[in-house]
């Protein structure tokens, strides 16, 4: 039926919205450390970018829309801010001034194998963070002030999770987990 109608109707040319659905995002992070810092557009599939020597970052052709952006300037400073990427446009954020970083610490009490345990902060690039060798303490960060969902697991299975952990600048939030 659709084919018949289509055949009946003449159509020439075409309309293309695809070029309008991606955009660029640029900015500069003050006091950024090139080796330690990064910028992440938070989503279920986070998109990351790094700095140049001057702290500039550039996201190229990312899907247009609204994001939460996590800026990790250094081991001690970070920032969370909402950004909107406009279609077919370059969105300029200007200079971003990071704040003292926040951290999530999880102390694990277990009789199992700690080496295979991990911590994930969802929608960020902190995925399956392991503890230092011999340690039972997991540290997720640096993080910008904001709210996060976190889970802890062993191999492929999560055995602990906590939603909506809202952190202040410079805050270190600790959780004790027995497994």
């Amino acid at each position, binding site marked *: 039926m659709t084919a018949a109608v289509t055949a009946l*109707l003449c*159509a020439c040319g*075409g309309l293309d919205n695809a*070029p*309008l659905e991606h955009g660029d995002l640029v900015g500069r992070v003050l006091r950024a450390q090139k080796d330690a810092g990064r910028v992440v557009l938070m989503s279920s599939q986070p998109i990351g970018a790094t700095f140049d020597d001057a702290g500039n970052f550039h996201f190229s052709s990312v899907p*247009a829309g*609204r994001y939460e952006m996590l800026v990790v300037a250094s081991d001690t400073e970070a920032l969370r801010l909402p950004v*909107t990427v406009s*279609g077919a*446009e370059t969105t300029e954020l200007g200079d971003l001034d990071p704040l003292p970083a926040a951290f999530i610490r999880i102390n694990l009490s277990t009789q199992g194998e700690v080496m295979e345990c991990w911590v994930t902060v969802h929608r960020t690039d902190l995925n399956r963070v392991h503890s230092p060798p011999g340690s039972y303490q997991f540290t997720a960060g640096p993080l910008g002030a904001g709210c996060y969902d976190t889970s802890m697991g062993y191999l492929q299975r999560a055995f602990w999770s906590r939603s909506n952990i809202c952190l202040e600048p410079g805050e270190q939030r600790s959780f004790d987990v027995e497994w």
Partner: protein
Amino acid sequence: MEKGGLVRVNVKAAALDAAHAPRRYAVLVGIPQVNDPEWRPLRYAAKDAQDLAAALADPGRGRFDQVRVLVKPEETTTRAVLQAVDSLAALATRPDDQVLLYVSAHGTLARDDRGELRRYLVTRDARLRDTARTALSVDSLKARFDALPSKRRVLVLATCHSGSGKSLLPPEVAEELAGIKSGFFARPVEAVSRASIVLSASDFGETAREDPELKNDIYTHFLVEGLSGGADRNLDGAVVATEAHDYARRRTFEFTHGRQRPSAEILEVGADPVVLAGAFSGGGDAELFSYAPRLEGARLTVDGVEKAELPGGAAVRPGRHRVQVEKGALVLISADVEVGRGARLAVDSLAARPGPSGAVALGVGGFGFLDRQSREQILPTSAAGAVSLRLDRVPADDYSVFADLMGSTGRAQLHLERVPGGEAVDFGYRAVLAGAGVAHALRLGPVAIYTGPRVAVLWLGRSFDLALYQGNQDYLTLAPGWMAGASWRVLGRLELQLQVAVMATYVRVDGVGAVLGHAGATAGAGWAF
């Protein structure tokens, strides 16, 4: 050996013309006295017939070949009058022979055997208590009259049927009619007349009067006066029946201060007018006239100047004229006509011509996709300017053909589905919708309603000037659909229009095609031609 041949004969042309000239006969009936004393005598009925007969027989005026006056008691019975009409059949045997029948008498109304209210002429032997059986039915008189071989017939009824003046109604009819304020409901006999001119001294339900000062029935007096030449409004030398009636009608109306309004009904009168007096001189002005009942009370204007109130007529100089018939604010007829010297044109015949054959119009409106998603991602609803052309009565009387062009340009914003919460994308657009259709038309006077199928071509152009994308996108597609519209002739040739159309449009976005609903609407003003 020849089996045929022509034989030369010597006949003078004048003699030949005389032998073939149309003959003119008149029967004039005056019934001043009725046997039944219930009807009071009429003072001038006999004189009316005799005066008109004198005018018709006068070699300087009517020049009728035979004029017969019936005023004696034995000549004015129902039977005698019908026999006189029948006798005309033996005389006026050719279609172009001319016959005039005149009756000056009492008139009345009565119910016939089927209970229908009918008009009767009060003959000498009519009885008030048995009118339907004894008086002369106007219907039967008309039937006899219409059966004559002549196609140029004039029936003049110097009578009335209102119950006053030259009328007396049976008591039961008078009582029945007393409660009716809007006029009588019996069908006028003129409505069934064919190939005849019927002139009445009064309109149906009005009073015809005799006047002691004029010493005649008022209408008859002015009819005779008009035959002396005063009624020849187009100065062609001949007083035709319509001219004579219009003259008598106008003068009667003035004389009675509007209380008596003579009427006329003319059906199937050909190019040959019925001459009552004089003869065509081969020149004269042209005549514009109408006696159509539906135009009664309308104004006849020629070249913007009011010439007459209908029924009636007016003389105009030969040439091209703009003729309009208006009733109140409505223009019933509007036509440009070319009339020659001595021409006679029934303006009601112009209504049968195709009137304004269409209209061109300018309008404003808008168009857009019916679904929200397409309005957000292809083109928002847009204001548009439009020009349209309509041809009426094409391909048939009840149809019109449309063509229109709608254009729009401007800037708008897209809200893309795959950019949740994203900012709108600004762009420029140009859209042209060119459509054509055939619509069934329902015409109700100055208002017409149209509906029918339509097909359009939609061209859509989008231009983007963004940091990461600059370019133009063009799309052309066919859009079949349906339209409905209305037009209203508000003043002269000024016409207001309204039109809506709904179409199916095949649109391809990002390589994916879909059939989408699309609609447009315009309102405008136009010039009818």
